[in-house]
C-alpha cells in the first residue's frame, strides 16, 4: 500500500503542470467554504455579544428585527419616536427594575451618536454580562451639569485619535453635507470606554439633555434661519427630553418578561412594542439564514465544478498511460492496484488543494481582520478550525476521493482488458 502511495505521489508530482489548475480550483472551493463559515459564525457571535442582561427593548411599533438593529446595533433607523412619559409609565410597572432611554439620529464622521442617561453605563452589559469599563475619564452626568460632555467608544477614540479634553462637533443625521453640522455647539471628550468588540466601540455617547440642546434651534432636520442660540444660552432652556428613539428595560425577575411585554404592546398612550433581544436575534438569523444557505450552496457548487475538472483531467490522460499501466501489471500490480493508484493520485491532489485553501483562508482572515474591524465593527478571529470547518474540509477531501474513483475505475477496466499488451 505504501508503495502505491509513493507511486501515486511521484506520478502526480510529475504531472503537476496539468494538475495545478485543478488543485487551485479545489483550493478556491475550500477557501470559499471555510472562509464563509468563519465570517458567518464571527458575525453571529458579534451580534449576540452586543447586548446582555437586558430583558426587553422598547420602541415604536415596527418589526422586531428592525427594532433590535437600530436600538442595539445602531444600524438602520426608527420609524417613529416614543414619548418619555410612556417610558415613565413602563418604569412604574411593578415588575420593571430599570429603564434606560436611547436616542439616535446624529452622527460623527460615520460613527453613531447615542443620547442616553448616565445610567446607561451602569446598566448596559455585553458579552457574558460584562459591564462597560471606562478606560479613561468618567461618564457624563445627567442634567445641565453634563451638558456637552461626550463619552467615546474605543474605536471612535482610536480612529480619530481623540484624547480627554478634545473637542468635537456632531452632525445631524448621518449625512456628510456641510450645513448639517451642529458646529456652534462643540462637545468635550470626558470619557473613553475600553474596547468591547461591540457597536459600543463605534458610538459617541452624550446625555439626552445635550441632544436636546443641539437641536434647540433646529426644526424638522434643518436649523431655523436667523435663530442662533449660543451653547451657554441653551442651558437656560428646558432641556428635559420629551421623545426618544428606544429604551432598554431590565426587570426584577426575568420570568415576568411576557407580562411586561404584553403591557407595553397594549399601552394605550401610543403604539409601542417590546422585544426580547434573544428572540429577536433568532428571528434575524432566520432571515439571514436563507442567504447563508444560498452562499453555502454556491461554494459547494464551486467544489463540484473543481472536482469535475479533476475527473476530466485524469481521464484525459489515461490513454497515454496505458503502457505505464501494463508495466505495472508486469511487475505484479493487479487491476485493483491500478485502481488504488489512480484513486490515490486524485485524493492527493484534493488533499493538497484543500490544505492550500485552508491556508489561504487563514491568511485572508489574518490580513483582513483589522480592516473589517475598523469599517464594520465585526471581529474576525484567526483560530484553529471549528468543528464545522473540519467537517467541511473532510467533506471536500472525501468528495475528491470519491470523484477520483471514476477515472480509477476506468483505469481498472483498461488494465484488465489490456493486460500486458495495450492496444495504443
Amino acid at each position, binding site marked *: 500500500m505504501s508503495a502505491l502511495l509513493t507511486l501515486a505521489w*511521484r506520478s502526480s508530482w510529475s504531472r503537476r503542470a496539468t494538475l495545478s489548475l485543478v488543485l487551485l480550483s479545489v483550493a478556491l472551493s475550500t477557501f470559499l467554504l471555510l472562509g464563509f463559515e468563519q465570517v458567518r459564525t464571527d458575525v453571529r457571535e458579534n451580534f449576540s455579544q452586543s447586548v446582555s442582561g437586558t430583558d426587553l427593548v422598547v420602541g415604536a411599533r415596527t418589526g422586531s428585527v428592525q427594532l433590535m438593529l437600530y436600538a442595539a446595533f445602531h444600524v438602520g433607523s426608527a420609524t417613529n419616536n416614543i414619548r418619555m412619559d410612556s417610558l415613565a409609565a413602563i418604569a412604574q410597572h411593578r415588575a420593571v427594575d430599570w429603564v434606560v432611554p436611547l436616542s439616535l439620529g446624529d452622527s460623527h464622521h460615520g460613527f453613531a451618536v447615542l443620547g442616553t442617561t448616565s445610567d446607561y453605563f451602569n446598566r448596559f452589559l455585553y458579552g457574558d454580562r460584562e459591564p462597560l469599563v471606562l478606560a479613561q475619564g468618567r461618564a457624563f452626568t445627567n442634567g445641565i451639569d453634563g451638558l456637552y460632555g461626550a463619552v467615546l467608544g474605543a474605536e471612535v477614540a482610536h480612529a480619530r485619535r481623540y484624547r480627554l479634553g478634545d473637542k468635537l462637533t456632531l452632525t445631524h443625521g448621518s449625512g456628510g453635507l456641510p450645513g448639517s453640522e451642529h458646529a456652534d455647539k462643540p462637545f468635550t471628550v470626558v470619557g473613553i470606554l475600553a474596547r468591547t468588540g461591540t457597536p459600543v466601540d463605534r458610538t459617541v455617547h452624550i446625555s439626552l439633555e445635550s441632544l436636546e440642546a443641539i437641536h434647540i434651534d433646529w426644526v424638522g432636520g434643518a436649523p431655523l434661519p436667523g435663530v442662533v442660540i449660543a451653547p451657554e444660552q441653551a442651558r437656560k432652556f428646558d432641556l428635559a427630553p420629551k421623545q426618544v428613539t428606544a429604551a432598554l428595560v431590565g426587570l426584577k425577575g426575568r420570568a415576568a418578561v411576557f407580562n411586561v411585554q404584553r403591557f407595553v404592546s397594549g399601552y394605550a398612550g401610543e403604539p409601542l412594542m417590546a422585544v426580547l433581544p434573544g428572540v429577536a436575534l433568532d428571528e434575524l438569523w432566520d432571515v439571514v439564514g436563507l442567504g447563508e444557505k444560498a452562499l453555502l450552496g454556491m461554494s459547494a457548487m464551486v467544489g463540484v465544478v473543481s472536482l469535475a475538472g479533476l475527473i476530466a483531467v485524469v481521464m484525459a490522460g489515461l490513454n497515454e498511460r496505458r503502457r*505505464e499501466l501494463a508495466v505495472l501489471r508486469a*511487475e*505484479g500490480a*493487479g487491476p*485493483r492496484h491500478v485502481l488504488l493508484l489512480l484513486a490515490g493520485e486524485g485524493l492527493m491532489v484534493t488533499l493538497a488543494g484543500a490544505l492550500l485553501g485552508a491556508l489561504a483562508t487563514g491568511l485572508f482572515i489574518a490580513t483582513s481582520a483589522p480592516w473589517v474591524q475598523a469599517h464594520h465593527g465585526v471581529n474576525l478571529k484567526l483560530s484553529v478550525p471549528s468543528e464545522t470547518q473540519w467537517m467541511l474540509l473532510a467533506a471536500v477531501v472525501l468528495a475528491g476521493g470519491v470523484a477520483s474513483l471514476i477515472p480509477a475505475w476506468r483505469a481498472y477496466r483498461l488494465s484488465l482488458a489490456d*493486460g500486458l*499488451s495495450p492496444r495504443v
Partner: protein
Amino acid sequence: MIEVRDLRFAWPGAASDCVVIDALSIPAGRTVFLHGPSGGGKSTLLGLLAGVLLPRVGSVSLLGTRWADLSGARRDAFRADHVGYIFQQFNLLPYLSAVDNVLLPCRFSRLRRERAAQDGGSPGHAARELLERVGLSQALWTRAAAQLSVGQQQRVAAARALIGRPEVVIADEPTSALDALLRDSFMDLLLDACHASRGTLVFVSHDERLAARFDERLSLSAVNRTASSMQAEDSL
C-alpha cells in the same frame, strides 16, 4: 519450470481460438528463443505464460503452480515474486528515476526484495550494482527515466527484470527498437546474467539471427497450432 498443457485461448468476442498449444515444457535454467512473425500471437502467449491472461481450456503452470488455481491477487503476487518481464519499448515509469525503476519489483514482492538484499546488502545497493553491470553510467542513475535514450531504457529494463533473481525472465522483442551495436551488447548482458543466476529465459523475437546464442530454439508456428495453420494458409 513452465508447463503448458492442452491450452486453448480466445480473446473475448473472437470467433475462434488464437492460441492452441497441446504441450509445451520449458525446464529450469534454460534459455529459450521463441521465434515467430510479428502478430502471430506472441504477446498473447507471453501473457498466458506470465499469468496475466487465463486460458479458456487447459493449464499453464509455473514452478509447479497453475496460474488458474490462484486468485487474481495471488496471481499478481506470484508474478511479482517469480517473473521478470521486459517489453519491446516503454518499459519504464517515466516519473521514476532509473534506480527507482529497477527497484519497482522490490516494491511489489518481498521475496525479491529479500533476495536483492542478500545479493547487494540492500535492495538499493543491488539495484546500483545491476545498473553498473548493464553499463548505465552513474550520472544517469538518478535521472528520470523519461530523459534516457531508448538503448539506455532497455538496459534499465533488463536490470529491473533481473533484480532479486526471479526464476523466469520473459522478454518480448526487447531488441527490436535497438540498432545492431546496442542489440549485441544487450543480448550479451541478458544472457550472461541469466546464465549466472541459472534462471530461465523465454526470449521472443522475429529476428532469427539472435537464435544461435540460446540453449533451445522454438518456432511459434510449431508450438501454436493456430499460428501454424495461419502460416500454412499464408504459404499457400
